[in-house]
């Protein structure tokens, strides 16, 4: 499910204060290596071309499959967006908690990260939906959002921590010596600078989140994956159905990764002018 952040340390904090996207994650398109032919545009054009080709040449299964899926896509987006909205603040709080000098807060945040990171997301989904139903009944959508945002909140906590640590200490010292208190220093000086290093990996996490929403189909949530499985189970057209599903996920993910890279290049505006 996830593979790019096992070591727990502020991974990839390079000396000059930049976070490198950890290996194994999604490669964000690099806007500087522009030109028409790059991996990103090749993948997107390829995926779109294959999908169009299949739908025009064999409309019988392929177009039918494509028509079957839009409601599922809506649910997938719904789960993703709600999870992102919950996971980012959770990640920020966790990241700050992990940096806190207050031992209790630090311990709570660290334990949360350790526990959540050690349990597969699929198990967490089952746990929240089926196991906790004994005590507390939540709807499918709520369980999905809770499970995914708790899981990714822990992952993002590490990203935020690394990003904040990458801001040179002198910034904090200067800010404190100019009379800012701790909170002001964090909000006005450290976080804005950390943001530039945090955005790409957080964007990566969001894309991974979108892909991981396919796991919620185990609790009969009618997302894109569930619609696909339902179609395949009815028609026995496994190859055709999952080809379409894979292409749709790929297209969405590619568009999202482009959005993240554009955001990244905007944030790095001042770096480029150097």
């Amino acid at each position, binding site marked *: 499910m996830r593979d790019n952040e096992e070591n727990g340390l502020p991974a990839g904090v390079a000396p000059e204060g930049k976070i490198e996207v950890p290996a194994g994650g999604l490669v964000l398109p690099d806007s500087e290596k522009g030109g028409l032919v790059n991996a990103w545009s090749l993948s997107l054009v390829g995926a779109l071309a294959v999908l169009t080709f299949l739908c025009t040449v064999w409309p019988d299964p392929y177009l039918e499959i494509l028509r079957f899926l839009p409601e599922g896509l809506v649910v997938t987006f719904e789960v993703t967006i709600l999870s992102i909205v919950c996971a980012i603040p959770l990640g920020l709080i966790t990241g700050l908690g992990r940096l806190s000098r207050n031992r209790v807060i630090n311990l709570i945040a660290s334990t949360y990260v350790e526990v959540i990171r050690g349990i597969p997301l699929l198990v967490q989904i089952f746990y929240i939906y*089926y196991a906790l139903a004994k005590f507390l*009944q939540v709807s499918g959508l709520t369980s999905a959002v809770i499970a995914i945002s708790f899981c990714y909140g822990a992952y993002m906590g590490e990203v935020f921590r690394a990003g904040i640590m990458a801001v040179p200490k002198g910034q904090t010292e200067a800010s404190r010596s100019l009379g800012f208190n701790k909170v002001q220093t964090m909000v006005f000086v450290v976080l804005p600078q950390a943001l530039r290093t945090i955005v790409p990996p957080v964007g990566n996490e969001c894309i991974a989140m979108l892909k991981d929403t396919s796991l919620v189909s*185990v609790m009969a949530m009618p997302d894109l994956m569930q619609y696909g*499985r*339902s179609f395949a*189970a*009815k*028609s*026995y057209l496994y190859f055709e159905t999952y080809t379409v599903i894979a292409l749709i996920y790929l297209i969405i993910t590619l568009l999202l990764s482009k959005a993240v890279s554009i955001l990244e290049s905007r944030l790095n505006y001042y770096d480029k002018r150097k």
Partner: protein
Amino acid sequence: MLRRLLCALLLPALLCSSAVAAEKIVVATNPTWPPLEFLDSDKNIIGYDIDMINAIGKEIGMDVEVRMVAWDGIFAGVAAGNYDVIASGVTITPERQRAFEFSKPYYDVQQIVVVKKGDSAANFEALKGRTVGGQIGTTGVFVAQKSGVDMTLREYDDVGLAMQDLLNGRIDAVICDSPVALYYANQKEGFTDHLAVAFRTEATESFGFVVKKGRKDLAERLNKGIDAVRAKGVEAELIRKWMGE
């Protein structure tokens, strides 16, 4: 020359070994469908289908190896040749017949809708606007879809999860094969006190063993086995043992 010699030596050896060891068929089953196939407390796969296919295997002189497979994908596996037979309470439908070869019918069922005790639903109309659960890709779900009644269908990976959600009150009904529904409503501890049979469909469905398209020979052999098992009264015995109807 050497090759020929090897062949001459190996061929009889191969023939002999196949003559000595009985032929083996690998049978896939999704053990989430009690009392047709499920896991006992020692994690053995047991149930009507399992006893039936073993009895058939004995009659036709084939060793049976039962393998546990997830329902979602069980058909893809037989098509890919990962196993020879599916014995997992598979209803013979025209759509499935187009994609797979079936043995002759070996057991007849209907669809039953299970609700919580006290719920008065007596037909699909009464489920209008409510939420009905079933196992993904099972005929229960298809029947509910074809009923034309506007209800929310939720397709679970496993009928047990659907029953659990019915118990938890997240869905209003579960639709599945009659033996399974009766098992949950009348036998399964923790469920019988809370669940009741709402109604059953009139249409009868027949279970068949599934083999890969084009394996008519294997289907024929299974048919012979079914006949033999019936003639010997083993089938009646197994029905008494598992179905308890």
